[in-house]
């Protein structure tokens, strides 16, 4: 296959996952020539969002050689036989839509199902990066409606903001004061390094700190479960850091400190790729890499794909995309559960106006999981259906088994009407990736277990820093109005650059002034 692509690049990026796309955009932005390849026909790899058909294909087929997705299984719940009970008919009339395998598949492309779902802190790393780099112009968000916790087997929304705390009936006024005071103390933590109140807790757990704050049981569990998102062994410092992250993201957009990207997290890799392309990056999907070698003379990396051999000073690749990395043993890393339901989880309060975008962190001993409910307001599924994502660090090769205790917690009290359910494992290399022989090839990390993209961004920054020292990572891209075409004299501003009505007025007035005695 002959294609008219250039053959020489500063950087070749392989795989369009979040971290790779981020590095591609950063390199392109500072003037490097970039070629970006992916074997898939969609952007994002395991960081992407797919329709139902694509998901089913991913879950059933044998994994492509570069894939890190394993142990896929799925079930359609309408195939149990007795599909047309009288109860079902009533439901149909009420909701106007009965969801079956056929109706869901017919709307396959209306779904944006994240393989690796994330929720962003409103003032977190990614939001800051998007704003700083001006890539935010390619993104849209839905403010998360509720941050939930479990209380006596029920799912309840936790009061996040000052007005939430003021309005909630679930806390006494003294509890309200204590919660607000605790939040303020966490907010101020770190500003005064020698604060004796906190000095004593260095090296202890956050849970111990909470107990000594004399906050009530209710507040303690609210903080542990939903605000600091801690486990019993989380250190004091880490707990404070997480609480601060939560608090500092409050009051920015919406009532909770979290954002979800409209149309799924797969939008992020695409936004970075777009930025890369704007600065001249070249994109080729459905291009796998056949061979990779290092030219001993020039120290360049040679990448063979189809009939072309590309040369680059550096290569950044997602794990398993390069043939050399395929021998590496993969181990289960994240166990994922993914459910489609025709009813939302939780009561009416949590699902005002047709279903909320809600998050809930689950605990089971020292294990934890993150549950995300997406309604059609997120743009990730059609109206009337709800997408449930559950993610936990893998402990076995059986994702359904890993998630069983969390599914029990979630669904035992309020069983949703499932339409589809599936499980899969995301894997990572058993041994951390080492760069290529000559520090010319770098491997990005597989998605870690986290809410936001903190680890992924740190990984991208780290690799970028090794590639190009002392170069700014994703500086702000100018807006159209800030750009002038070279050759124009920027100081030659004339009346045409004034607003139209002012210009007309000025012309009018100018004749008048000539006759009048007006001092300039």
């Amino acid at each position, binding site marked *: 296959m002959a294609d008219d692509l250039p053959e020489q690049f500063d950087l070749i990026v392989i795989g369009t996952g979040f971290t790779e796309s981020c590095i591609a955009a950063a390199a392109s932005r500072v003037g490097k020539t970039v070629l970006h390849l992916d074997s898939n026909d969609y952007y994002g790899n395991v960081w992407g969002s797919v329709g139902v058909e694509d998901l089913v294909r991913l879950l059933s087929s044998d994994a492509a050689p570069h894939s890190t997705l394993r142990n896929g299984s799925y079930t359609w719940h309408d195939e149990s036989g007795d599909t047309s009970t009288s109860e079902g008919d009533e439901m149909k009339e009420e909701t106007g839509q009965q969801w079956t395998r056929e109706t869901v598949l017919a709307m396959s492309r209306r779904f944006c199902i994240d393989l690796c779902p994330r929720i962003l802190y409103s003032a977190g790393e990614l939001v800051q990066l998007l704003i700083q780099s001006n890539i935010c112009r390619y993104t849209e968000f839905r403010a998360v409606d509720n941050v939930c916790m479990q209380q006596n087997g029920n799912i309840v929304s936790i009061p996040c903001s*000052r*007005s939430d*705390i*003021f*309005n909630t009936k679930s806390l*006494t*006024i*003294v509890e*309200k*004061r*204590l919660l*607000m*005071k605790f939040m303020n103390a966490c907010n101020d933590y770190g500003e005064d390094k020698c604060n004796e109140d906190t000095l004593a807790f260095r090296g202890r757990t956050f849970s111990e700190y909470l107990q000594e704050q*004399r906050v009530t049981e209710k507040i303690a569990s609210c903080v542990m479960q939903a605000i600091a998102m801690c486990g019993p062994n989380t250190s004091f410092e880490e707990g404070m850091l997480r609480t601060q992250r939560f608090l500092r993201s409050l009051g920015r957009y919406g009532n909770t400190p979290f954002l979800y990207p409209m149309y799924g997290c797969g939008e992020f890799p695409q936004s970075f790729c777009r930025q890369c392309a704007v600065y001249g990056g070249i994109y080729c999907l459905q291009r796998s890499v056949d061979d990779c070698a290092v030219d001993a003379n020039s120290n360049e990396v040679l990448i063979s794909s189809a009939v072309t051999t590309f040369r680059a000073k550096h290569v950044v690749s997602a794990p398993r995309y390069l043939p050399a990395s395929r021998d590496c043993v993969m181990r289960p890393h994240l166990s994922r559960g993914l459910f489609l339901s025709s009813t939302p989880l939780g009561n009416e309060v949590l699902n005002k106006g047709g279903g909320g975008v809600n998050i809930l962190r689950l605990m089971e001993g020292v294990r934890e999981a993150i549950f995300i409910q997406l309604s059609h307001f997120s743009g990730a599924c059609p109206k009337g259906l709800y997408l449930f994502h559950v993610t936990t660090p893998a402990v076995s090769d059986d994702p359904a088994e890993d998630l069983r205790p969390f599914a029990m917690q979630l669904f035992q009290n309020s069983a949703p009407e499932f339409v589809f359910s599936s499980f899969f494992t995301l894997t990572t290399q058993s041994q951390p990736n080492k760069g290529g022989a000559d520090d010319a090839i770098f491997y990005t990390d597989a998605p870690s277990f986290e809410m936001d993209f903190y680890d992924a961004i740190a990984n991208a920054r780290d690799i970028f820093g090794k590639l190009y020292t002392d170069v700014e990572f994703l500086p702000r891209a*100018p807006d159209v109005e*800030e*750009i*002038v*075409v*070279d*050759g124009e004299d*920027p*100081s030659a*501003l004339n*009346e045409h*650059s*004034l607003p139209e*009505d*002012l210009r007309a*007025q*000025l012309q009018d*007035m*100018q004749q*008048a*002034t000539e006759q*009048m005695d*007006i001092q*300039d």
Partner: protein
Amino acid sequence: MHGRVKVRTTEEERERKKKEHALKVRAYRAAMGRILKKRDAGELDDEMLGLTVQILHRNPDVSTLWNIRRECVLEKINQLAAAATESSKSDEGQAEAEAESAAKPVEQEDKLQSVYGQELTLTEQCLMVNPKSYNAWHHRCWTLEHNPQADWEREVQLCNKYLKYDERNFHTWDYRRYVTAKAAVPAEQELDFCTEKIKVNFSNYSSWHHRSLLLPKLYPNEQRDRPMSEEKLQEELEMVLTAAFTDPNDSSAWFYQRWLLGGGAQADQPPKVVAFRMGATGAVVAFNKPCPDFEQFRVELASNEHMWKLESWQPADSRRTTWRTQTSIDYQKDESYCLKLAEQEIKLLPLPTGDGAFYFVPPHAASSCSKELFEELQTQLQSCYDLLEYEPDSKWTLLTSALLMRAIDVTANHERSLDHLVQLQKVDALREGYYKDLAASWTLELELAKWVTSTEFPKRFELSAESALTSLPYGQYLAIADELELPAKLKEELGDRLPLTFAELKL
């Protein structure tokens, strides 16, 4: 390379801004010059309206231009009115034109409404530029006042919209009170609106204030010793304490709470006589607050048989809360006397020494309290105590608990409430003087109430040295005493501000 894109440097950007600015200044000056010239020539026409719009859109705070617009509007209205009488005159003679003339008033009215409509649209556009433009808000009121067919309901909706953008804009709240009165919006509905806004963000002085105006109307208090009915007061106290505990650093809730716990006294009430004493050679009268124009009052003293006009009043203190007059009065021991001034008629009591008559009412007589309200106050006080265990130095909690104690029982809780003020002087040292003054007021209120029952009343007033006061509020109440026994330190502190006794007034 030609045609390559590059980003403007800050230097270039600054240069561009400067040029743009200079052009704007030129345009502004030219337009202003033209407007003033036209005005001198009396040309209040459509062109004038068009010219002012262009400047006001950019800067809605040029009062002169709004004034000129008002002249233009009045001119237009006059022209329309003149045209109307003209056409009706010519119609009178012509019966056949009757059908036509019926249509004319409608057309006239439409024209008139479009004149007003234009002004309303302009103010709306200007408020988008500056939502706190006094001029724009004022012009809107003026326009609506002049239009007999103003749509007040629409204005209420506009306020709803603006308060959604900024729930704390006091201009909008002020305007809202004006239009809701005009549109006769029920007070219940307004109260619900306030509650909604408080729920969104309770840090909102305007909304609390609006509440404080609505509640006494909706839930009046029969005895007038509390701002509203006790049941409602109970609810309000609960709500405001929740706000105050949620964020004690936000002062709006605490201010509202102090109003709730207050006696419901209206600031605009006229001064009231609190003390009066007369002897054979003259009289002294003291008010609860300054009464600067007392010499203009008509004051009469009446016994069963006689009537004296008390005139030539002289102020006896610099604040003009105390006044004296030298008039000889033939005092008869067994007569009953009565003082009449303005609308008040005050019955006097004979002095125990038999050489005159007097009147005295101590400040803030303790309010009664229903069982339910009493319980609510107790619960709130308990919450404050609970909190003080966690935060012993919490300023607002200390102050609030002191106020609550006093609302429950002034006399029994006097010492404890003063303890809180002493602690407040330490934890909130910036306002030390304020707490000292507050302590002095509370002490005097109690001492004056006790004085009434003492055997030496009203001849001798004594303040123990323990009270360690540095100021003497309610000093005017002591004008009827002959003898003041005050701590030496306080006397020293007061110097020539020491209130004069009846004896010292030398009547």
